């Protein structure tokens, strides 16, 4: 029996099929349950033709800049040919899992940092440790490409998901300085609510699909969320965070049924004072706004802390490039290294796509430093971002969904915060047994 049709691979593919059947929420079912094992380093096989699988090749903002970067690279590296197959972002992980498992996918691939461990669990990703060695990546960025100590991804862009404030609304509400503590934040929200006019003080996530944002608040309230591999989402800190979140909900300082798309729409219409987003969300907000000056009013803010002196906490966000250990892998790894470390490439990527570099030199480039929003985002949010606590599990998507459903149950009063989070812990733990 061929390698592709071995019993193990067949079972893995069937796992991926179940994931496709219930796409999204059960994303983790797509993944094999085996341990993470990268296939070792890459040796140059002389093959210069490889695909770069990326959703950026089809998105309006990134399509042309990426084509230009690839054209530049192939022009500078004679004989190299790069195709750019693309899949929709929401179906991307399932498609890649299926193709990697089926042996159909080669070359380099763009990945969301949250997906890297799931793909690495296939055992088909190349160890890029030797490629990353000696490069100028920031420590935080490099860590996002590492799974179980192995460098299976090269960081392409790295930031976080953090608070964005509308300075004009805050000024009108008398909030002159960014709130630094949870108490100051609450006071700011109440001041904004006092403005009336249907403004949502904080367009926080309250729909299940994005309620994982509460993890950053759980960290803020002192919970590790996962402690020594054990899920502790019902500890004192997490319960305090959810109790506080529910208080905001009950006092209508946050609104019901809001996800990221709704929050961006509210911000773009000047109907929200705060919301949370990645750095790339700014473009979506400003583009759909009738206020041409809205971009100048948006301010990235460090997440308020529980007590002065605490370190703000944010969920990481970013993209990495991984390489399949197959024909053309060495050439693909070289391309990934150039794209992520060469300032000529990373600066242009930032200028055209708005995505910050991951190297010290790239971040120090004048284009990045002179962009007030990007500089503030890097300083206030990205610098204090951490990988999601469940990303190491292929079932992370299911786990986050369970947590979100229980949090929502508490918000609408179906259960107490303690009960909801205890149920969440039990169900999440069962998923990774």
């Amino acid at each position: 029996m061929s390698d592709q049709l071995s019993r193990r691979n067949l079972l893995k593919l069937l796992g991926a099929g179940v994931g496709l059947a219930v796409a999204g929420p059960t994303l983790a079912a797509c993944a094999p349950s085996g341990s993470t094992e990268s296939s070792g380093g890459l040796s140059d096989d002389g093959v210069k033709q490889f695909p770069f699988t990326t959703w950026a090749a089809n998105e309006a903002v990134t399509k042309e800049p990426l084509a230009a970067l690839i054209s530049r690279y192939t022009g500078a590296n004679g004989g190299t040919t790069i195709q750019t197959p693309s899949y929709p972002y929401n179906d991307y992980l399932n498609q890649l899992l299926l193709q990697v498992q089926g042996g159909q996918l080669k070359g380099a691939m763009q990945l969301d940092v949250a997906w890297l461990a799931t793909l690495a669990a296939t055992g088909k990703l190349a160890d890029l440790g030797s490629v990353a060695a000696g490069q100028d990546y920031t420590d935080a960025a490099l860590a996002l490409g590492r799974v179980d100590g192995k460098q299976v991804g090269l960081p392409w862009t790295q930031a976080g998901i953090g608070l964005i404030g509308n300075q004009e609304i805050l000024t009108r509400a008398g909030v002159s300085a960014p709130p630094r503590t949870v108490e100051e934040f609450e006071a700011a929200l109440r001041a904004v609510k006092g403005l009336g006019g249907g403004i949502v003080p904080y367009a926080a996530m309250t729909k299940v699909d994005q309620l994982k944002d509460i993890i950053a608040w759980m960290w803020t309230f002192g919970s590790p969320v996962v402690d020594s591999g054990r899920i502790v989402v019902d500890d004192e800190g997490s319960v305090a965070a959810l109790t506080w979140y529910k208080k905001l909900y009950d006092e209508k300082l946050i609104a019901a049924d809001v996800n990221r798309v709704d929050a961006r729409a509210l911000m773009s219409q000047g109907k929200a004072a705060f919301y949370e987003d990645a750095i790339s969300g700014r473009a979506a907000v400003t583009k759909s706004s009738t206020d041409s000056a809205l971009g100048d009013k948006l301010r990235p803010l460090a997440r308020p802390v529980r007590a002065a002196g605490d370190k703000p906490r944010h969920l990481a966000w970013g993209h990495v490039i991984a390489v399949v250990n197959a024909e053309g892998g060495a050439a693909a790894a070289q391309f990934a290294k150039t794209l992520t470390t060469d300032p000529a490439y990373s600066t242009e990527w930032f200028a055209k796509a708005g995505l910050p570099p991951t190297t010290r030199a790239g971040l120090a480039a004048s284009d990045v430093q002179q962009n007030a929003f990007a500089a503030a985002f890097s300083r206030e949010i990205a610098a204090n971002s951490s990988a999601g606590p469940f990303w190491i599990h292929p079932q992370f998507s299911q786990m986050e969904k369970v947590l979100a459903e229980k949090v929502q149950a508490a918000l609408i009063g179906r259960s107490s915060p303690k009960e909801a989070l205890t149920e969440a812990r039990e169900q999440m733990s069962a998923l990774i047994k």
Partner: protein
Amino acid sequence: MTAAPPDATSTAPEAAPAPRRRRGRPPSWGAIVTVAVLGVFAFGPVYWVAVTAFTPTADVFRFPPRLFPERLTVENFSTLWDNPVLLRYLANSLIVSTLTALLTVVVSAYTAYSFAKFRYRGRRSLMYLVLASQMFPQALLLITLYLVFSQVGLLNSYLALILSFTTFTLPLCIWMLKGFFDTIPDELIEAAKVDGAGQGAIIHRILLPVSLPGLVATGLFAFIRGWNDFIFALTLAGPEKQTLPPGLVNTFLGEVETAWPALMAASLVVSLPVVIGFAVLQRYLVAGLTAGAVKG
């Protein structure tokens, strides 16, 4: 000869015909409300697609949303012409859906004829076996098909899509056509046999021509299946052979931004050929779908 005196009615100017009285009971308010609700349910999304397609991006996201747009624009349609890849998706969809419909009609017609007009050992079991294939989750079949197509080198081809779509349309189409063929009297076939017609002549010159509505209904059903499918087209077709559903999603739905107005404009335009096709063929569709429903 004495003429009879004209009566009053004959001398009067010709009266307008009395308005025809409607027979039966007037429609009840309940019926009107039901039809209205169903109408909103059916056409509301279509209306919203059309309105969004003609609304400037900044207005689409206005809060609260407006049922009637204040400004209209055609700029969202410009993305269609700026994006030639959409034409490729459209061509792929037409090729795949048309060939799926043709293959389905051919295979299901012969199979249904066999089930309807012949009696042989294992016939009933075969019929239920065909139906049983509908019971499996399609995603599981997707994995099987993916493996098979991968082994025989059919991935990323039209044939992969046509074969997989046909796999899913055949059971229902076979049963639909069997129901249609059941309504054709056996005496017609016996008469043809008496006249010396062979099986080929019977099916091609007698059975199929009188079954045109059923064949059209079957073909349309298969066409719609191929036209609307997302996950199989995304998984089996590859970037070059992608059809409209995954193509549109890939083009307009991004990581952080969804170009809703452009997506709606594209959806509106690419729906037109299918809508026109349905308008032309809808009488066959209705006849074909209902023919086997009441067996006399």
